């Protein structure tokens, strides 16, 4: 089959590889109908996530048709149309029993490696380095789906691929970011990053009853999407004014947002001044892996007693964490890879009921063979790119 593989920093290529096979009784094989490039794939592409290997198949947002099932997969039949969540979860361990699927205790067969980096192993993730298990990803014609009896959700209604594809990651991830903010109605929520995850965090915060949602980005086309599609109430364009913290105070009568969502992660672009220069230099020389501007500003901007919700991906260590602001303002820092399996059914129902149509983020549709171009366009934000969908 054809698959998009990582072959070094800023290099991916579509190659012919073997077709996937069932490796144990709880696997299924999916013939992929649609797959996407995630913002977090850019961290792999840019070389900031450790333990990548040449030849690794990328991709953790995919859907398609079941073509083979292992002996113990009884909930799915050949021919079923499914969306596959990006974290691989066993459903049986203590974490899974508590709906903490992205920290499943069993699905990372490189847990010895992961413990060295994170203290503990987290769940396996498709196409996302050997630190999260070394699983082949879904930017391909076929994929093996382990624990297929736990993860995939069947699509039995008349919905298009683009309406349901993002249940695999970015819609639940954005929703999870908003869910961590304990929205009860009437809050002001600020969202750093108006990429696809940020768009869904904004749309979800609005659905949950936030009164005002402020989108923060440096690309006007993304901010316009946030206003017009995700229903943000306010925007901050830091290309025009880099002092985000001051602008957030201005927009909230000096209080600061009740909660701040970091939908940016380790490659934040907006830092300025001397500290930014130091972070850039340290990241370039690999002595600091995470570029922490979004998280620093989120902590500085958040109102005292508020919540900082981190769904942007970080991979290692950062410098100058504002511990004084964090502690003295009494903030709660919440984070995680989304526990997608927990949100699949309720979010599927939101789509089915017409509360939201996630396809609004799609700006580029390419054949799988064009994946390398998709990565370049997305990385450099060319052609007003927000989301690239690949068709095998």
């Amino acid at each position, binding site marked *: 089959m054809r698959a998009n*593989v990582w072959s070094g920093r800023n290099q991916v290529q579509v190659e012919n590889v073997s077709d996937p*096979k069932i490796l*144990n009784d709880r696997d299924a094989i999916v013939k992929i109908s649609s797959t996407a490039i995630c913002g977090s794939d850019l961290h792999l592409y840019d070389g900031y996530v450790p333990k990548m290997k040449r030849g690794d198949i990328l991709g953790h947002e995919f859907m398609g048709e079941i073509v083979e099932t292992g002996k113990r997969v009884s909930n799915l039949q050949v021919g079923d149309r499914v969306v596959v969540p990006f974290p691989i979860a066993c459903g049986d361990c203590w974490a899974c029993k508590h709906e903490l699927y992205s920290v499943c205790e069993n*699905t990372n067969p490189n847990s010895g490696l992961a413990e060295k980096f994170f203290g503990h192993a987290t769940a396996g993730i498709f196409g996302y380095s050997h630190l999260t298990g070394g699983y082949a990803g879904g930017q391909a014609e076929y994929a093996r789906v382990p624990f297929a009896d736990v993860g995939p959700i069947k699509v039995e209604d008349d919905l298009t691929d683009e309406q349901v594809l993002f249940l695999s990651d970015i819609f639940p991830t954005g929703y999870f970011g908003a869910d961590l903010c304990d929205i009860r109605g009437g809050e002001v929520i600020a969202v750093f990053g108006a990429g696809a995850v940020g768009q869904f965090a904004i749309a979800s915060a609005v659905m949950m009853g936030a009164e005002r949602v402020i989108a923060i980005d440096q690309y006007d086309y993304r901010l316009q999407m946030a206003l017009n599609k995700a229903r943000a109430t306010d925007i901050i364009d830091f290309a025009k004014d880099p002092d985000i913290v001051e602008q957030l105070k201005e927009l909230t009568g000096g209080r600061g947002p009740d909660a701040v969502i970091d939908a940016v992660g380790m490659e934040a672009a907006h830092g300025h001044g001397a500290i930014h220069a130091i972070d850039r230099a340290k990241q370039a020389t690999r002595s600091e892996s995470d570029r922490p501007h979004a998280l620093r500003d989120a902590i500085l901007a958040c109102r005292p007693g508020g919540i900082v919700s981190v769904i942007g991906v970080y991979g290692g260590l950062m410098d100058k964490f504002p511990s004084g602001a964090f502690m003295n303002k009494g903030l709660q820092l919440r984070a995680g890879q989304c526990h997608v399996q927990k949100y699949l059914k309720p979010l599927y129902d939101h789509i089915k009921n017409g509360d939201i149509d996630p396809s609004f983020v799609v700006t580029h549709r390419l054949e799988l063979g064009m994946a390398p171009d998709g990565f370049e366009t997305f990385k450099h934000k060319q052609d007003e790119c927000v989301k690239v969908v690949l068709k095998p």
Partner: protein
Amino acid sequence: MSSKASITVLRAREEVERLWRDSKYRSDSIEKADAAVRFVDAPGDRGTEIHVDVQKSAPGGKLGEAVQKVLGTEPLAKVKDDLRRFKQLVETGVIVRSEGVPEGELLERKRGQRAAQPLEPSELNEVGV
């Protein structure tokens, strides 16, 4: 360096102790190491903690030095692999395999991972599928 390894399995202690003796689940490296193994009820509803110490031998067993001989220089890492495999088998019924680590958690693979792409048909037998 510590000589101890532990893991928690989400099953009652009686069941964990029974499966530990079952040849289908039994850990080769720990048995060869003849290490001391303790089972402890985990707090709350978290199942059972398994504690292994490779320097202490099982009652009436061999001594710690023998462990090093049998297992080479990294006996503890091997024991950890086996604890994880035991937990996987008991909790999920399968050994968890990725394309990068098709044999399942394996010390040797930490040094040389496969690329995360499907196995060649000829590799399937080698990895025990």
